[in-house]
């Protein structure tokens, strides 16, 4: 079975300081992992994805995430927060499509606040 735990429901950082949003996953198979961002009243936008290639994945808007199998983690980071980064962030796990029908499992989300 697949599941995702986002360790913080809310993170608050000052503008210009680093961002760390934590995600741990559980998967019976080699997972694919994703981070999505949702701005208020907007849809889900893909930030980045890991699909068994390089363990350090770079995404849009300066975000990156590192897949650590030994820690079953896929934390999202950004060196310097911008006001426009304030949003809800979702970590998502998906098992290989042949085994599950390509169904995504969402974390409960982390709300990021950026303080001017």
């Amino acid at each position, binding site marked *: 079975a697949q599941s995702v735990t986002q360790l913080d429901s809310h993170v608050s950082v000052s503008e210009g300081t680093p961002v760390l949003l934590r995600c741990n996953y559980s998967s019976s198979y080699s997972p*694919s992992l*994703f981070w*999505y961002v949702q701005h208020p*009243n*907007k*849809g*889900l*936008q*893909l930030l980045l*994805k890991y*699909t068994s290639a390089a363990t350090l994945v770079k995404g849009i808007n300066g975000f990156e995430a590192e897949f650590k199998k030994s820690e079953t983690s896929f934390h999202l980071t950004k060196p310097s927060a911008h006001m426009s980064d304030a949003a809800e962030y*979702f970590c998502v796990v*998906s098992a290989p*499509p042949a085994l*599950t*029908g*390509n*169904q*995504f*499992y*969402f*974390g*409960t*989300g982390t709300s990021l606040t950026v303080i001017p």
Partner: protein
Amino acid sequence: EPEVTQTPSHQVTQMGQEVILRCVPISNHLYFYWYRQILGQKVEFLVSFYNNEISEKSEIFDDQFSVERPDGSNFTLKIRSTKLEDSAMYFCASNDRDNYGYTFGSGTRLTVV
């Protein structure tokens, strides 16, 4: 960048009425999905659709829900008789299985009054 388009962006309906939420997936994608997000809660899987039939559905997707791909481009979610608890943001997604990772639409906010 290709997009998944959902219409309308916001729909208000009276309890007991039927609603149809519309989605236009990316044209060469073969797998289609509906998810929903009740306000303040996590995004939940509803149904996946491939080769003109449902491939998986969740417990949420009961007899009040149906999906179809009527014309080869649209992918619709119908709720036969809406309840207050159907109020949520509904997301459509499509995927080309060879290019792993969904593309989501911007969602339809359904409000049942």
